[in-house]
């Protein structure tokens, strides 16, 4: 396939994947007795109808993108950080405690200080998992998930105890929340009448920073090398363990910052349920965005739309908001399967051949240069012999898996 053909192919795969996801969603909606068309219309268009809707999408996209950027750093460095939820909570605690404690400081000092405190809180929480992994070889998935539980309990404890708003004790209502943040610590609202806040700039700014960090600096180069093949990196003099800890610190810091921005920009006091599962959705956003800032920003907007649309369906189409979680899950499955289609040259080849058979267009003969050697699954194929190196890399991976089923179709067709 040539370049434009490939692009068209990839685009159609994405469209089919989205259609499949919506199909699965439709079945679920039908099962709960909702109006399918109406539910989809509400989810996908209702939030975009007015300024408030659009700004609310962005309000949700800000923490999502920050968390996803941190996840991308960790994943690229070879460490699977599932603990953004806990790191975000620790960020919220650190940030709000700082804002309350130094309430008298002027705004230009207090805002950055509180955000940095949030970053530090998240970094410490992420760093624990990083150090455990680097020094003791503790599996980071286990440690980060467990640290999530500890963070959640610690958060609840502080909000119901030491950090609880004294007013709540006086009035006796006992809502677990801190006092309102001092005005000096508030992030500015950008549009009157909406909750759109200055955190947007932070998210966009940091997206650019992450891009430069990972792809333009020696530190990023080494982090990616350690993540892609730790052994080769170590043999090349990279201190793999050090970069692993750095990656976890940064990843935690981003999640902590997401918490700080959320509490200083949106809620302005730490309340229960503030993280709202952002820490987990953030992982999906990072993967959906291809672990790249340029993909993460639009992906975070898309999931912001889904989250907001979910709230609206509850009101307007009487579909429980949780049903949208099902839709999210279906989308993830569809995207993961679609990737298989996009990266697997065998499937591509098969589709291309089937396509040319159905529509009678003869398959163009392979250029003479490509009638060449053979990708033994045991040998590495030589990419000089074909025009698509990525496809060949994938071919190496899939050759062994794919062999049993592939190509029965052409064989049958030839009979």
């Amino acid at each position, binding site marked *: 396939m040539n370049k434009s053909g490939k692009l068209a192919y990839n685009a159609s795969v994405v469209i089919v994947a989205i259609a499949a996801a919506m199909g699965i969603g439709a079945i679920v909606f039908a099962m709960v007795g909702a109006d399918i068309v109406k539910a989809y219309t509400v989810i996908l268009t209702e939030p975009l109808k007015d300024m408030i809707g659009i700004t609310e999408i962005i309000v949700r996209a800000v923490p999502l993108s920050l968390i996803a950027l941190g996840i991308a750093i960790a994943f690229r460095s070879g460490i699977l950080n599932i603990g953004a939820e806990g790191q975000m909570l620790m960020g919220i605690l650190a940030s709000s405690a700082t804002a309350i404690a130094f309430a008298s400081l002027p705004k230009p000092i207090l805002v950055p200080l509180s955000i940095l405190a949030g970053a530090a809180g998240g970094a410490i929480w992420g760093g624990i998992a990083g150090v455990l992994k680097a020094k003791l070889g503790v599996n980071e998935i286990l440690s980060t998930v467990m640290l999530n539980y500890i963070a959640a309990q610690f958060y609840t404890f502080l909000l119901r105890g030491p950090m609880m708003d004294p007013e709540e004790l006086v009035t006796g209502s006992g809502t677990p929340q801190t006092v309102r943040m001092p005005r000096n610590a508030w992030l500015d609202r950008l549009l009157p009448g909406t909750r759109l806040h200055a955190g947007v700039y932070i998210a966009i700014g940091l997206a650019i920073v992450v891009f430069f960090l990972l792809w333009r600096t*020696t530190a990023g180069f*080494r982090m990616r090398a350690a993540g892609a093949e730790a052994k080769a990196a170590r043999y090349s003099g990279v201190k793999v363990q050090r970069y692993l800890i750095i990656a976890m610190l940064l990843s935690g810091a981003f999640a902590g910052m997401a918490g700080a921005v959320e509490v200083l920009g949106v809620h302005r006091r730490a309340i229960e349920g503030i993280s709202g599962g952002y820490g987990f959705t953030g992982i999906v956003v990072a993967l959906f965005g291809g672990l790249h800032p340029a993909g993460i920003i639009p992906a975070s907007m898309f999931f912001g739309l889904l989250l907001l649309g979910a709230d609206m369906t509850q009101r307007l189409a009487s579909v429980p908001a949780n049903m949208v979680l099902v839709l999210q899950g279906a989308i993830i499955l569809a995207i993961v399967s679609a990737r298989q289609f996009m990266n697997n040259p065998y499937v591509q080849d098969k589709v291309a051949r089937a396509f040319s058979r159905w529509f009678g267009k003869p398959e163009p003969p392979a250029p003479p240069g490509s009638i060449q050697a*053979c990708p033994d699954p045991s040998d590495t194929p030589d990419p*000089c012999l074909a025009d698509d*190196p990525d496809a060949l*890399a994938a071919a190496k991976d899939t050759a062994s898996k794919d062999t049993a089923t592939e190509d029965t179709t052409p064989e049958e067709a030839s009979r």
Partner: protein
Amino acid sequence: MGHEPIRSLELRGITKRFPGILACDHIDLSVGEHSVRALVGENGAGKTTLMNILMGLYHPDEGHILINGSEVHFRSPNDAFDHGIGMVHQHFMLVQNMTVAENVALGMQSAHKLFRLDLASVKKRILEISERHELPVNPDAMVWQLSVGEQQRVELVKTLCLGARFLILDEPTSALTPQETDELILLLQKMSRELSIVFISHKLNEVKALSDTVSILRRGRIVFEGRTENHSSSDLAALMTGHEVELPRVDSTGIDRSGDRGLLSIRELNVLGDRGNIALDGVSLDLAPGEIVGLAGVSGNGQRSGSIQIDGVEIAGSSAARIIGVGMGYIPEDRNTEGIVPSFSVRENLVLKDVGEKQWSTAGFLKLKAIAANATGLRERFDIRCPSTDTAAGSLSGGNIQKVILARELARGPKALVAVYPTRGLDMGAIEFIHKQLLERRKEGVAILLISEELEEIMNLSDRVAVIYKGKILKVVPGKDATKRSLGLLMAGVVDE
């Protein structure tokens, strides 16, 4: 299982396409009873693909397979087993933490009773087979405890237990030591009295020793077929690569290094192996500038004590970064995981060690243009064949990956270079190139420690050859005096001359 013997097996016009590549191009091949057919070709010539088609792992796009003159269709390896065809893969397909008998039982349908596994019958069968073919194996041994040679035997027994009377061996000697290889070849010679064997290899001396007839594959086509005895190894090598190959040899006559101090000197080095054995026991060795010393009989790695110096700088126990910094080049054993980061592009891999140097970065920021220009230069100089320097290095062929590593290590201008199995698994063309490069570096005054299992390689390249036996240097012989026989004896611990 259990059916008529295979008197002849014939492949007719087998064609297999992979995306953008014609892997097998109308291949005809026929193998008769009790004969050994060698299938020879460079990496990526289509040997393994062809055999995978024969095993039912791939389906051919065109062509037929005929057994005893009638056409068969293999939908899966089980179909091939049922016809008595068995394959021993290049990478052993054994479950490490199971016993030999359990491994064999995995594929033996007859041992799987309704609610239990009839291991006793499996063991009986293993003993039968191993007696008949003189393949001693202990059915109760755990696979991970066995040496590579023993595991190879287990693979053979397993295949035979499953009823194979037509054996396909895919580079069976690639992981074996020279002695194990000789044993295997003797064994296969005996087995060929009862079985038909297809032997895939690119080691021509083994082909000469074992096979009756030879087929040479190049770029998916059979380019030559004939009786092995009528052709010399160098004839076959030329047919395989398409040009005359003559491996370069070191010329160390008339060089007196007695006055040189050691550029790379190893003093009283003790190394404890992975399994607690003594890998190196008080080894001392000095390499002069511009000298290649071959090391035979060493394997494994582990804890060490002692002293290693480059140009007078102590490096034993230093960090990798420091050792690199003082001018040590290293071509690691496992090129795919230790030599390169596979998902990184060729140009990134070429600066993997030096990305922090002023040449490639300023204040922590990469100089992308310089890195790209460097890659373009090295690609030219080292004949790295890749679509672009932006290509993922892991997608290149083994030979080209090794060239990337070589380019990086040599372009750094090392004082000393340690090359571990630098040509393992490569085809003749790539070996020739790498040998030439090493000899050129030698001329420039680099001290090169060459560790290899190929005696020929060591003899061709080394000024001196050090033979290690039971962790000690048994003898250091001048390269020009070394013969296969003398080295082989030394490696077995015999010092007589």
